[in-house]
């Protein structure tokens, strides 16, 4: 097994300490939560030398702890360091925010859900097989390179909704679509962001966060009583797997919000599908129409037309699932 590359490890006792240290290191320090994504990256080293963190700042030592789930005044607040297993098993989340609980329950494997945090999941690096190949084998756009090898290569798992800044890798967060469908907000030490505006495609990052900015809390408004939220994931394996396509929907009580992920460089809000459903009773026909609308703007690459069919099926099944209560 390869050694994890060297770094300095610092424990932050407060949010201030964490962000001050991040600022002090000017991009050379990264926040460290569950570690499952960062340590894999630090071991296999897909990035060029200039992009690795030299310092990891442990957020788990912050006091008071950022590990909590509570509901107050119709808002579910989840601390940034809450483990995915605790979200998946939380009765309240399961009852009222089931898309989120189900999404958390579908991430990777039980071991990883015991380690990984919600903020780590939404901040994971957007990647494709080329991006992830060790030792910076493919010096792609997201590493400061000049071309995207996936555009002309085997892109069977890549974006079906075009590129962002030239990148056709997909965001594989399972939590992301659930947060978008549930209209969540992400609170950082600097600002409050709507989930739909949280993600970006950068070198090499995948969020809008500044170098000295960390996620502090996730806030999810309680869905209307008659709306139902669902999450679905299509992957090759049923466990230990990234999604090929996943999605979440919140439908009912006059609301229709549908989000897909792993279909584009950023989580994809299926607004066309939402429009189709407005004012409609959910039935087979409505679901089919929504599914067609959801992929109406898809433009496949050479190897991934099949993902359009999968995405369409996911939307249709999610919509129909919100019907059965």
């Amino acid at each position: 097994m390869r050694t994890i590359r060297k770094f300095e490890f610092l424990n932050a006792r407060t949010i201030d300490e964490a962000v001050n240290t991040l600022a002090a290191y000017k991009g050379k320090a990264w926040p460290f939560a569950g570690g499952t994504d960062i340590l894999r990256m630090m071991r296999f080293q897909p990035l060029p030398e200039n992009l690795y963190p030299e310092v990891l700042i442990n957020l788990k030592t912050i006091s008071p702890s950022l590990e909590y789930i509570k509901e107050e005044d119709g808002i579910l607040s989840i601390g940034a360091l809450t483990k995915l297993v605790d979200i998946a098993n939380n009765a309240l989340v399961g009852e009222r925010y089931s898309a989120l609980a189900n999404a958390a329950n579908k991430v990777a494997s039980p071991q990883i859900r015991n380690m990984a945090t919600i903020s780590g999941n939404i901040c994971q690096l957007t990647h494709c097989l080329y991006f992830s190949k060790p030792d910076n084998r493919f010096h792609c756009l997201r590493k400061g390179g000049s071309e995207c090898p996936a555009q002309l290569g085997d892109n069977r798992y890549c974006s079906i909704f075009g590129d962002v800044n030239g990148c056709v890798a997909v965001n594989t967060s399972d939590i992301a679509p659930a947060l978008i469908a549930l209209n969540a907000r992400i609170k950082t030490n600097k600002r409050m962001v709507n989930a739909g505006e949280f993600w970006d495609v950068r070198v090499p990052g995948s969020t809008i966060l500044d170098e000295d900015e960390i996620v502090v809390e996730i806030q999810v408004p309680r869905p209307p009583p008659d709306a139902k939220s669902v999450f679905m994931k299509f992957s090759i394996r049923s466990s230990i797997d990234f999604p090929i396509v996943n999605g979440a929907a919140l439908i009912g009580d006059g609301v229709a919000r549908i989000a897909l992920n792993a279909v584009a460089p950023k989580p994809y809000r299926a607004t066309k599908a939402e429009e189709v459903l407005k004012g409609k009773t959910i039935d087979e026909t409505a679901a089919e129409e929504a599914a067609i609308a959801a992929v109406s703007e898809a433009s496949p690459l050479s190897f991934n037309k099949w993902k359009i069919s999968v995405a369409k099926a996911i939307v249709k099944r999610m919509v129909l699932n919100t019907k059965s209560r």
Partner: protein
Amino acid sequence: MEVKERRLKKPLRENPYLTFTQWQFPEDPEYRIIGKVVPPKDTDRITGKAPFSRDIKLPGMLYAKWLTSPYAHARVKKVDVSDVKSMPGVYDVLVCGDPDLQVEGSPEGLGVCEEYPWGQCNVKRPDIAFILPCEAVYEGQPVAVAVAAETPEKVDEALKMVKIEWEELPFVIDRDEALKPDAPIAQLFRGQDVNVVDPVAADLHSYVPWVAPGSDKCERGDVGKGLKEADRVIEFEIKVGTNCWGGGGVEPYASVAWIHNSYLDIWFRVQVPWMVPESAAGAPRGITLPIAASLAGVPLDKIHVHIPYTGAGFGGMNWVGNGALPTLLAVVLSKRTGRPVMVLADWSSFSGITEEEEGHYKFKVGFKNDGTVTAVEIWSNASRGHAGLAIPGCEKLFGITTIKNCRCESTVPYINKAPAACYKHGTTETIVLNEVFSQVAAALGKDPMEVALKNDGYFGHPMHPDMDEVKTKQGFPLRDSLKEVIEAGKKAMDWDNKWHPPGAKKLPNGKYHGLGFAWADEWRAGPWLPFASDNPYHAVLYFLEDGTATIKGMRTLIGVHEKTTYCQIVAEEAGLRYEDVELDHEFNEARLMFPAASGGLTWNSVILKELGMKAKRKLLEVASVHFNKRPEELDIKDSIIFERENPENKVTVRDIVSRYKAKFAGGVWATGETVLKGTEMPPTPREVHHWGRQAAFVEVEVDPDTGKVDVKKFVIVNDVGRVINPGSVAGQQYGGVYMGLGRAHTEEIIYDPLTGVKLNDSLTWYHVPTITDIPRLDAIAVETGLGYSAYGNMGVGEDPNCVARAVLRSAVYNAIGKWIDEDPITPFRVLKALGKG
């Protein structure tokens, strides 16, 4: 023939995920221990105490790794290691071209450089190969530089400091492309100007005896005549992919070598530790030790082999390209540094090897309206990547059918992929066999089992009456294996009620329902078997003072409950209690018949039976003095020796052994005098017969929108001849089906078409099935006694994997009404077949 009164036995606890059923026959003798569920022996594997190769630690041991090629084809122009040599903790830096890496001549039957799938030959000196080459012919190949240092971390740091100037060379990873006239030459160092493997050099004949010497064709009868006799002729083609997470298994390779005094000690992850001299050319197996001896400058007899527990072994580990490389490099580094050196092959799981041959197969099949196949013609370009040898894929079609006229023509290209090797071997042959009969059955609208039974045979001979005569002559029961496995499986699957025409059954959940059937023979070890060579083999039994006994004989522990089954046989035959017998598998002075590979138990049960019988004779001879009776008047049961006429007159084995210690000094030796039943079989005298059959039945649901194939139920039926250990047989059946299904529809290596680089060489993106991905399995073991081994038993390790991979093809066809012309059947390909991908 009618099967009477068979007894159904369920020796293992019921489980909703696996039912294991044994079909036994009343005429079988009842054994005390054989066939019983006994507590397995090697419990260190459960308690975390079992050391695997990477867990070995010696005083002063150094660690070493090598660089791997980032390119599919490239040559090292310049290496700069000046920064590396002075790094703290670095002990040695080896650069390609160093004379210490050179292997010369043909020691102990070693061939010329053509036979090293790992090496680089000097074109001008074809008798020289280098362990670490300067030209890489696949991405991930060990190449250029190796470093030995104090810790693995220091090795990683040092390798990062190596500066290499590469010359990228044109490459080809597609077999069809490789055979075009203007194709790039995949392997310049071989000095060839085409990518075609020379059939004479590859010596296919020695591997597949029915390929004519110096040829790449298998031929029987007259295909033209056979096609004329046919009522119908169909043509079709398939592409079988390489998709395996290879390298032998789950444990990344490591080897330790230590040259001290005049000895060489080796600890390695290996499947075949010792030499089998008459190995198939082009596929050198088990020749690690002779090369190691010559590199170390010690005689072969002064190598001391240690075999730690082995993280599975499914094949491929024997081949020099994988198993031997870490060991040989460790030897070189130990010689240079004077220290024990552990070589860590981090690349090995994905980069060392891929699975079996990939190939493009084109078929022309003629058949009668009753399903009798009259002629088969196959053209293929099966390739084993970087390795020279590729098996044409027609062995089963030739070996286990009545088809009189067949021709299988195979052009084998070199391509810029890792060498491929056997890995639960036989999938390609099984796919080819079943593709013929599935397509014929589909074309005729017939039950595929009817077509299978019609064509089941042995090298062109029908089972009845031709084989019946042979069976009678050689003392085998008159049983029809295929008929029996089909009967058992059909019932377990409820086939007749579930069967429907292709594409005809859409379920309420929107998915297509499909049923599939595939069959093959039991896997038989080939002509490289100990019987075909002069390799001496033996087993020893030492009696200890406490009355227990230890079997001594080298083999590897790859995880087929080898200790358990071996002790069962010896205890059974010697009259000892099972718990009184142990196996010492690291005894260098006696090598069991087959080290650990296909047919391991099948072969070794012959010598173990002999050993048990000899041990019993010895005990009775010694005891006869004590009893003052002739040995024939005595018997042993449960480690107690008694007078037959008067069982109350008894003494324990322990008493006899401790009282007559000197008589047991040196142990009891078995040297393989027993001859296998049926080894003198026409028409291939070097082969044993293979009358055992297996059948797989699968029920699937195919999602037409996502392309996902859900396997709902699987029935596997294996004729194992006789069950030695139900737990082990059930484990092999389940394990084989599980691996076969993974290889059939979730596992696939993806290559970048523009660079030839593997893109998903990690367990995250190479999808080995998890516990959530496996269906309910009904495993049925049929006992016909038709095997060639000591108890009529035969192997089961490879078989379920092969049929499982093949059977999914016909099930998906039955579901969606379309053949998937490329394998594996991932959602991507299903949707493509449905026009959605």
